[in-house]
């Protein structure tokens, strides 16, 4: 059982204290195909839940990544600039996008746990 939460837009979020690590789900990377570019926000950007946080470009399309929660970006995964393929290889680990200092822990309540997300994904196919 994992302690990750998931959004309907296929972002994952993992909480450690008040800092949340965010990326796109394994399902999302499968759907996108080979990722060729990731545009991340600047550190110190303030994000609101549901606002555009990043852009992922694959061989098929460019897609927005939305902030699943509100907060301030405190760290971004600079490795992705050199190696965007990390998103395909390990979307929910090494392919993380950014870390956010959360404004409101209660926002996590809106998100799905791994089991609910798996059921949601199954309903899409």
């Amino acid at each position, binding site marked *: 059982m994992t302690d990750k939460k998931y959004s309907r837009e296929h972002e994952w979020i993992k909480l450690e204290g008040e800092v949340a690590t965010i990326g796109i789900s394994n399902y999302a990377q499968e759907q996108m195909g080979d990722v*060729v570019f990731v545009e991340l926000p600047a550190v110190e950007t303030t994000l609101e839940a549901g606002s555009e946080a990043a852009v992922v470009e694959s*061989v098929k399309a*460019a897609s927005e990544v939305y902030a699943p929660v509100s907060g301030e970006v405190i760290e971004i995964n600079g490795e992705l600039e050199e190696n965007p*393929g990390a998103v395909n290889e390990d979307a929910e680990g090494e392919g993380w996008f950014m870390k956010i200092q959360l404004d409101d822990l209660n926002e996590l309540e809106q998100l799905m746990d791994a089991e609910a997300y798996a059921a949601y994904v199954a309903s899409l196919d």
Partner: protein
Amino acid sequence: MTEITTHSGHRGLDMAEPLIFEQGASGRSGVDWPEVELRNSRIGAAARKRSIGLPGLSEPEAVRHYVRLSQKNYAIDLGLYPLGSCTMKHNPRLNEKVARLPGFADIHPLQPMSTVQGALEMIDTLASWLKGLTGFDSIAMSPAAGAHGELCGLMTIRAALEAMGNARERVLVPDSAHGTNPATAALCGYRIDAVPSNERGRIDKAALLEKLGPDVAAIMLTNPNTCGLFEEDIVEIAEAVHAAGAYFYCDGANFNALVGKVRPGDLGIDAMHLNLHKTFSTPHGGGGPGAGPVVMTAELGRFAPLPHVIKSDDGYTIVEHNAGEGDRATNHLGRMRSFHGQAGVFVRALTYILSHGSDGLRKISEDAVLNANYIAARLKDDLSVPYPGPYMHEVLFDDTFLNGTDVTTLDFAKAMIDEGYHPATIYFPLVVHGALLTEPTESESKQSLDQFIETLKALAADAKSGKAEMFKNAPVLTPVRRLDETRAARQPVLRWRPAALPEAAE
């Protein structure tokens, strides 16, 4: 399949061809110039100190290089080109003949207007036809392509809104839109608000109405849309958009389905670009420049860019400055490009229009729609269609038929190349999974369509009978095999560079 190799590297009549910079030798050239002794060079410090590295080729070498490259190209002159959304129709040779008449081909945009009255009349006549076919009063002829036309349309709308004191903030764009729509709106300083499609592949009207508000500047809608479907609610949408004080921009890329059948101006649209290189048969891309005139209401026309051609008692004139003349007295935009647009493209489009006449143009749309529906009817059980018809000028398949085969839409498209067809448009529009968008145009005969259909049926059968390996390896009959598109995007090599030269021994 075993790889066939040859001693020469050529494959029969398919010549292996290196880059031009990798050929030739210094000192070789097509023309022998006499040695010139420069006594008083006035170039000074700007004089080159070393070779600039141009390849040295004789004339036959240069000719062979470009002919060989041209033979590697797929073209509408070579075969059916089912690239959805692009309207790859035949470019009639009559268009080319007329465009080469000295009165069109051998003139210069800076000639005195009295010496180019025929060319100006040609632009004005084409403008009249385009306004007539679409039901608008005003037109901007200068935009150089479809996306440029969109930009013209949105800039014009923004100028009109600014003149009323509020440019507004949001532009509504359906999730099935061409990527140029949101890009255009963003370039004009607007925030994009995506409107979802419904289960029938049309825009979700309820969601659209909910998003309308006093901060919405415009909606950008393609009709028929990128799924090849007619937006049936378009009149109601136009009324709601106008009631909210916003403008209705239509992406006219798919006008080929409607010519002579529907006048977009009658539907409540405020502005729309026309891709002359799609609907009106002028060459695409590398075959020639595009042109994207924008038709619009008289109200918007006051803000459209210059120049434009007007007719007076003294003949035709190009209005180049905002001097209160004509219908562009309050022009806000200035110019979007030099001179008056792609005159060479205009001649071809007008030739196409006049050689077909209004009844012929209507027949063209009917045939384009008939051809697409014929493909849909004969392939819907072999491939899979996400939305029920009737289809307009193109038919959208998804990858449901490939479920469980380990073959992707990309693999399927690559296999089409081995069969001698340009692939269909893939992974667009984004609203369906594994999209394969096919647009035959009116140019194809039933025989040509049948051959294409039988080929796709056979490929679909191959995919379903476990021949995934064949698809993964495709194409195998091309000058180069499957390209690594991922690596090309991740590590692009954007220009050729010479190998490092060895240090010269001094």
